[in-house]
């Protein structure tokens, strides 16, 4: 990384220049610097609406970058150690879809862990490829999905000659990392591509003692949520490619899924954030790491809670752990994670990232303050003092049910379907998604066999207060299944 060059922010500088020129707009957007919609100015401020503009010569064009966006993308590639970087304004969901669409086509298979984000499965509906799930281990106590091992992935590759790529979560939502380097080397020996979902891993590129990032491991593509740990605006994201990819083809794919009116607020925030990370990222994430470790220690000393960390690392299914993820197992105080999540918000005015059945996760980032971390720890101590009950037994093996894929997601999505009462769906093929939020991992996806265990798990998650999404019937009394059994 060239630090002198990283000190510049070409798109940001072009925006500043543009703002000072006071160009008269006879182009879109029609609010014309907010004048046509004064409430927008009240809400967002004049500066913000004043730079909500469309692509034009001095500001380049995202779908065919030649000047300032191109330079900003080149600097980003340099900062992340990638061959090429693409700015994305449709969220990391879009970046993930573009990764998948860049390597798969109808009839192909793609190897994924079950705790894959729904954006991957949605991309398969678009392109017609079929997922092959790796049977990853689950931590029986915590109820979280662990990483993939080299052997597990290789076994699946050998059994599935139609597979063209392997997707790796780096890290998972819970901070679990697979041995991405060895997996990548092995997958490449078999001639397949490696895609990394780094929605929760931007900081891995700027930390001294953090797990290895995908580009360093030699992965072919990585989807980076700059707006999560990177500090850019919500919905802005980055797609990175390594030297095994044709950047022009990837740009073509991106242009299929991306808007032709990309927001300059989002794009500029990517440019500024990249500069910030390149220049100050290491210090910032050092601080984040210290805060997370401090909070972990304090939470563990309350008693009853288990804020897990590097002690989970075992060299195989937990090859590495991202210590910036502050996850806490809550069942030993007799409360589900989702219950603690709700109490924190409703009674203590603290919004955390997610609560699932056994865990909560508090997102620690460059925007935190130590006094807020004290509040979080204090609130957890209070919840334990006021609400703790006998520890709950955790029926863990139900958490991750490896589905049997009967049809490709695309076939199932477009097949003739019928609505059946949920208990009568056992033995049928699902025609829709059922996801529990948080953490947004599919319990059922189109093309998968509905089993008794899956139905039980859906109803259990619903009863526990998870927001159930993806399915057509919000009450979940019925499911959409394929007519044909």
């Amino acid at each position, binding site marked *: 990384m060239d630090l002198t060059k990283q000190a510049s922010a070409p798109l940001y500088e072009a925006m500043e220049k543009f703002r000072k020129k006071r160009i008269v707009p006879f182009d879109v957007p029609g609010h014309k610097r907010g004048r046509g919609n004064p409430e927008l100015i009240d809400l967002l401020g004049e500066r913000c609406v004043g730079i909500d503009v469309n692509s034009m010569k001095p500001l380049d064009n995202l779908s065919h970058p030649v000047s300032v966006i191109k330079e900003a993308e080149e600097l980003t590639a340099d900062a992340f150690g990638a061959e090429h970087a693409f700015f994305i304004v449709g969220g990391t969901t879009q970046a993930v879809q573009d990764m998948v669409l860049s390597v798969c086509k109808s009839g192909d298979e793609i190897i994924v862990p079950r705790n894959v984000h729904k954006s991957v499965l949605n991309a398969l509906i678009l392109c017609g490829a079929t997922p092959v799930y790796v049977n990853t281990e689950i931590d029986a106590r915590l109820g979280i999905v662990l990483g993939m091992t080299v052997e597990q992935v290789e076994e699946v590759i050998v059994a599935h000659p139609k597979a063209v790529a392997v997707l790796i979560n780096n890290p998972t939502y819970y901070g679990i990392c697979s041995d991405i380097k060895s997996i990548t080397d092995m997958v490449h020996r078999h001639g397949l591509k490696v895609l990394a979902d780094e929605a929760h891993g931007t900081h891995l590129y700027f930390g001294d003692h953090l797990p290895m990032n995908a580009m360093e491991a030699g992965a072919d593509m990585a989807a980076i949520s700059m707006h999560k740990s990177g500090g850019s605006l919500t919905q802005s994201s980055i797609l990175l490619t390594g030297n095994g990819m044709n950047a022009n083809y990837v740009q073509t794919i991106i242009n299929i899924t991306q808007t032709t009116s990309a927001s300059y607020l989002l794009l500029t925030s990517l440019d500024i954030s990249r500069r910030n990370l390149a220049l100050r990222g290491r210090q910032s994430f050092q601080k984040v790491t210290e805060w997370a470790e401090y909070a972990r220690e304090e939470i563990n000393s*309350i008693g009853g809670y288990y804020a897990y960390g590097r002690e989970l690392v075992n060299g195989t299914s937990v090859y590495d752990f991202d210590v910036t993820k502050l996850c806490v197992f809550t069942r030993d105080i007799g409360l589900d994670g989702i219950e603690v999540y709700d109490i924190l918000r409703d009674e203590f005015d603290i919004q955390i990232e997610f609560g699932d059945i056994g865990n909560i996760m508090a997102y620690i980032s460059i925007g935190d303050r130590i*006094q807020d971390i004290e509040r979080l*720890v*204090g609130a957890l101590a*209070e919840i334990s003092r006021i609400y703790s009950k006998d520890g709950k037994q955790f029926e863990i093996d139900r958490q991750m049910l490896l589905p049997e894929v009967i049809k490709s997601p695309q076939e199932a999505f477009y097949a003739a379907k019928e609505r059946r009462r949920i208990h009568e769906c056992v033995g049928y093929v699902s025609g829709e998604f059922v996801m529990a939020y948080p953490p947004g991992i599919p319990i059922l996806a189109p093309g998968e066999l509905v089993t008794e265990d899956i139905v039980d798990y859906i109803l259990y998650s619903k009863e526990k207060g998870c927001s159930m999404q993806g399915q057509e019937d919000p009450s979940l009394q019925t499911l959409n299944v394929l007519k044909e059994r």
Partner: protein
Amino acid sequence: MEFWFSELHSPHVKFGIRVEKQLFSGQSDYQRIDVFESPEFGKFLTMNGGVIFSEQDCFIYNEMVVHVPMAVHPNVKKVLIIGGGDGGVAMELVQYPSIEEIDVVEQDEMFVDVCREYFPETAEGLEDPRVHMYHVDALRFLRNQKDSYDLIINDATDPFGASEGFFTREFYGSCYKALREDGVLVYQHGSPFYDEDEEACRNMHRKVYHTFPISRVYQAHIPTSPSGYWLFGFASKKYHPLQDFREEEWNARGIHTEYYTTNLHRGAFMLPKYVEELLEEEEDR
């Protein structure tokens, strides 16, 4: 010379103090601290642009947060002051020989240093051998305290600034845990008059009311506070501030005051109707 300090008490109301000179300006890890010299209020200290105390009116709340609980709780031996790095509250407390230990938790060392330099008379309260100062976050300090204090005084005033963590349910709950079975918590309850202050005031009462069995609010007139009107909270596990009031005992102690009297004690709990109403509304939530 027209040299004025001004502070917005609401987005539409500005409070001004003519200043003779600025004595100090600095940025600590937590806040910006300034000290001014003024003809009307003497020296006064501000944090992030808001007045924290002035030489002329600080006696009012120092007395009100100390003597009100001391005239109710019969046997205060161990006291915790949250904030209070200026020493004003400690100064009132050291007048009671029966108190054995006073812990002061003030995270901001710069604040203590500035008070020692510019307000040495007030800071003298910190020199008493019974006083121990801790420079840590109060929530962190409280987490390790259980059944340890007879009286906790939260001297932090600003629910929107660096001390916002001391106006939260986790804070009040931690205080409850740190107090002995008959312990009392007294805290700055803000000003109920302007809109945004009213909301903070409501939130505080709701959180405390649902944490402590007894939760009453009392008032004082403090010229530098928003609208000149200020409330305090009296939260208690056992003693009621009026039913368990030990008027004669307190008067027999012969403590010197300039604001507090046992007559005023009763009156302070008699609130205007609009304040009573807003507090009652929160009690039902």
